[in-house]
């Protein structure tokens, strides 16, 4: 556990000492603010539904910028040699980095609370729906970060890591659209099950379905396990 904590602390220091975290959080908040006001004025309803959907897409494109440096940066900075020779378990390294990235995700989410102020001042929003929306957003973000972290471990180049992650995440988001072209029931259900967007839609509507929670946890766990195994194999 000491190792995990040390890695986590180091990650947090690294985030706040490089411009990328500030940049990603800022762009995300500006984007969310824009969509929030747009949705509010267009629909005139005091809800976060549409904004959550936009936040999902924004996270899909911005979180790879957070995850891209996680291992690629260690390879190119030649610090991987240190990490792999310190008395550190590979899973501690992988999880420490992941938790660091999740902390940035939490900060991003917390930043959007500002949008809730006018919502509560001038409207009568549904608090539990907003709460489940945030839970869904965090789970979605965690899955995105875990996948991004895995791709970051596969390449020395941070840009390449981000460029692979974005289309993969977008595929997971839009894969549900392929459902309508399928005649086979199994294939249709599978495509639906794999869809990031469909599971997220449940949360936005105020539902916490165990299937959806399990799905996001499963995706994160699989990506992190592959990440750990890859690093061990790499020795």
């Amino acid at each position: 556990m000491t190792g995990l904590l040390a890695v986590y602390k180091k990650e947090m220091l690294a985030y706040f000492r490089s411009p990328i975290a500030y940049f990603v959080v800022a762009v995300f908040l500006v984007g969310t603010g824009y969509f929030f006001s747009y949705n509010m004025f267009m629909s005139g309803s005091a809800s976060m539904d549409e904004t959550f959907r936009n936040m999902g897409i924004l996270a899909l494109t911005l979180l790879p910028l957070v995850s891209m440096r996680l291992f690629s940066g260690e390879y190119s900075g030649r610090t991987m040699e240190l990490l792999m020779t310190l008395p550190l378990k590979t899973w501690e390294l992988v999880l420490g980095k992941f938790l660091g990235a999740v902390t940035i995700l939490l900060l991003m989410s917390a930043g959007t609370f500002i949008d809730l102020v006018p919502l509560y001042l001038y409207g009568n929003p549904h608090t539990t729906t907003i709460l489940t929306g945030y839970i869904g957003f965090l789970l979605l973000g965690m899955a995105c970060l875990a996948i991004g972290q895995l791709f970051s471990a596969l390449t020395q180049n941070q840009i390449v890591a981000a460029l692979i992650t974005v289309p993969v995440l977008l595929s997971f988001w839009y894969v549900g659209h392929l459902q309508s072209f399928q005649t086979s029931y199994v294939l249709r259900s599978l495509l639906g099950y794999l869809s990031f967007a469909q599971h997220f839609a449940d949360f936005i509507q105020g539902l916490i379905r165990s299937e959806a929670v399990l799905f996001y946890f499963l995706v994160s766990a699989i990506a992190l396990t592959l990440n750990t195994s890859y690093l061990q194999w790499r020795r």
Partner: protein
Amino acid sequence: MNNSSPAISLESVSKRFGSKTIVHDMSFSVEKGEIVGFLGPNGAGKTTTMRMIAGFTTASSGKVSVAGHDMSSQNEEAARKLGYLPEHPPLYDTLDVSQYLRFVAHVKGVPGKEIKSEIDRVATACRLENVLNHEIYKLSKGFRQRTGLAQALLGKPEVLLLDEPTAGLDPGQIQETREVIRSFGERHAVLISTHILPEVTLICSRVAIINHGRLLAIDSPVNLQRAFEQTNRVLLSASAPAEALRAELLSISGVIAVNSRPVPGMDGMLNVECQTDAREGVEAAIARTVATRWNLHRLERQQPTLENIFLRYVAGPSAAETPP
């Protein structure tokens, strides 16, 4: 640690990348209190061997153990006993030196209360006191190298692996770094890779010479030199006619070959190089013979340098013939 087990031990270790074998069947060990120099030209397999000992890569076959722990199964236990400075110091540019050292100390399991004193200790040893609060990317190459060394010294590891620790340092810093390594080596086991030959003679108790991934020799510098003393070189300067001097020298038993050159600008003076065998008293005989007939200005016996020995091993006998 099992007290009887060597600090570092390699048993028939090989490393293959695809069809290419980088390290062939290498076996040697390093004991506690010993500084072993790892010598070899670029691409000889030094770094790969270091990386296998450090646990960064695993051996394709054979067994590597550190402080009695098998690197293939007890990697983490071994890592606790190990300080490693890779060829390129592994530094986080955005962190301060103290933050970086704190991170490494944490991971190495230095107890929280002792971390500060431990960082102070290594910072003093590596002369980093004045840059502890500097961001690493602002440091000069010498300071970066020493920050890397400080990281390796954290937690007083039993085994220290240093891959070219003095690369990029100025002469003063090299001196200081050698002192740090020397003082550390008194109580611990140190394996240091380098291609700076004088460094090896100055601080190492044994030298391992490797080339093309094979261990060619491992012994103390003195023993390596002795092994090469079968043929010696005696250099002399004398004022004498070349042919007569040559004939006289060759008549001395033990002199194998004579090669003379006139000294430019000094009329009648010759620089002579004699190849002799290893028997005792050849120089004395040469000195007597020359001095009785002519003017002898200088006579010295040239011992084989580590450089010659190294070249003999890695490039075959012909390379060592040319004096440096």
